[in-house]
């Protein structure tokens, strides 16, 4: 509950602040005008534009992606039974980068206009996940360790493909696309993309939360899970599909923002314990809150330039994580 209030407050504050700060009162007035279809004085038109057309979708996207990455991180860590796993461990981010770069270089999917690159990224992400799945499943069995190892290997392979494409590419646009996709940014946020992201992330987070007892059972090991009526391979397959879809959509709109999906699950577990019903209720809120602030810092600290999100998530997250970990004895997998 506290988190919800904090989140709403942070979202409003983040919409107000930027290279051109707007008083919170005005922000609220503009938002209300936009939502209720009210009128805005002609003198305020530019500010209104900034608030409603640029900052609001951007902050909302940050919140959604933060929430989604945290939820997926929790699920992936339980699914592959590895504390170092994050949403990108299955090659999804490198797949998205290859997809985006291919589209940029070849000019394919031109019919989709400004969505071409995002679509390419999404397709690349899903193809990578499918490749990892096919390569790691053997006779219907899906071993967690094999999943992770295949994911890491496929990631390396895709990065090599990307290097070759950039090397051969005739323009510098490809290079900047890669940079954008590997560092992550909400700069391209627009109202048009929000509904899809909101639907997928919200639905995915709810579905994951409804499976929290299954995730608990999976953490007891495959044998015990089977004895409790939870077929480990079947549920891992389901989780893999759900996590890939969610991550694919998020990567397509914001690039691969590292660290959130890795550290947020651990931070939340440190505070509320390991039970997934609690972790999956809190992690999305905490992740959203964190990401809204990270994005705010990214676009205000050295305004008008923008810092890469990945750099800030790491710079904030690492010290916080180390402090929390030292304060309380925290264990994952008995290690």
């Amino acid at each position, binding site marked *: 509950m506290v988190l919800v209030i904090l989140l709403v407050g942070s979202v409003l504050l983040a919409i107000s602040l930027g290279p051109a700060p707007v008083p919170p009162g005005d922000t609220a007035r503009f938002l209300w005008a936009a939502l209720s279809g009210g009128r805005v004085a002609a003198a305020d038109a530019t500010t209104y534009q900034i608030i409603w057309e640029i900052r609001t979708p951007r902050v909302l996207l940050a919140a959604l992606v933060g929430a989604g990455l945290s939820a997926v991180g929790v699920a992936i860590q339980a699914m592959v039974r590895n504390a170092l796993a994050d949403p990108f461990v299955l090659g999804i981010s490198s797949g998205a980068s290859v997809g985006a770069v291919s589209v940029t270089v070849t000019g394919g999917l031109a019919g989709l206009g400004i969505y071409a690159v995002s679509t390419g990224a999404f397709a690349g992400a899903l193809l990578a996940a499918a490749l990892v799945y096919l390569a790691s499943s053997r006779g219907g069995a899906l071993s967690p360790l094999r999943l992770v190892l295949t994911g890491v290997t496929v990631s390396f392979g895709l990065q090599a493909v990307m290097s070759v494409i950039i090397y051969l590419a005739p323009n510098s646009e490809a290079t900047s696309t890669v940079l954008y996709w590997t560092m992550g940014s909400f700069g391209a946020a627009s109202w048009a993309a929000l509904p899809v992201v909101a639907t997928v992330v919200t639905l995915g987070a709810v579905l994951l939360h409804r499976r929290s007892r299954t995730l*608990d059972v999976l953490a007891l090991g495959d044998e015990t899970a089977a004895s409790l009526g939870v077929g480990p391979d079947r549920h891992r397959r389901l989780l893999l599909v759900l996590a890939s879809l969610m991550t694919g959509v998020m990567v397509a709109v914001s690039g691969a923002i590292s660290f959130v999906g890795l550290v947020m699950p651990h931070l939340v577990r440190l505070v509320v*314990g390991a039970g997934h019903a609690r972790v999956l209720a809190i992690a999305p809120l905490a992740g959203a809150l964190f990401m809204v602030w990270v994005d705010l810092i990214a676009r205000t600290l050295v305004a008008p330039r923008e810092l890469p999100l990945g750099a800030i998530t790491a710079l904030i997250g690492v010290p916080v994580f180390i402090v929390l970990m030292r304060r309380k*004895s925290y264990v994952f997998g008995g290690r």
Partner: protein
Amino acid sequence: MELSFDEVTVVVNGRNLVESLSLRVGSGEVVGLVGPNGSGKSTALRCVYRALAPSGGAVRVDRLALTSLTPRESARAVAALTQNGTVDLDFTVEEVVALGRAPHLRGNQPLSGRERALVARAMHRLDVAHLARRGVLTLSGGERQRVLVARALVQEPEILVLDEPTNHLDVRHQIGLLALLRGAGLTVLVVLHDLNLAAAACDRLGVLAHGRLVATGPPGEVLTAGLVREVFGVEATVVPHPLTGGPQLLYTLPAPPTN
């Protein structure tokens, strides 16, 4: 509820781990499965708790083939204590024990009052109630083993299969656990390495060697010096227990080689 193996064969990667195993565990009976390492004991159990599907034959509960039930349905009838019961996340003891209710609950449905009482009773029976709030990863091996047994009881099964449940347990808790198995009124199939404990705790024993059942019957008939020599390759003298009369094995170490 009766548990029976009906000509069960398990082939993994071209190797016959279990071959035409037929064994019946009557309702309320405690049957021990003994045999040397790699003789197929754990493989046979895995077919009962659905971690493995037999390549041939069927495992039945009350004449009903397990494979005809959904995993959740069979988990309501059969609970298991598996080998290497590792836990990845630092759940509290109470949380782990409560997960025994998973096959009975839909999605995130919370535990009812009756189920919470069930969890408390199981923790008390296994002497882990004082650890309820502790993280399972901070427990000793024996404490964790007891937590996992409590979890299996909370499942309210009619059939309980256990793979070396006395692993890591001190002697008091070994005896306590086996006494509990005898008194629980459940149909029990248990893999044990300690033949003396097996003789004391089980109504009947099944002896596996190379995936085949080589002997079955009451401990007094099965555990003979000849069988122990043939199956386990050790010399043992069988004497009656002075108080209970059950068979007890006294082992003789081979003489050190002299050159």
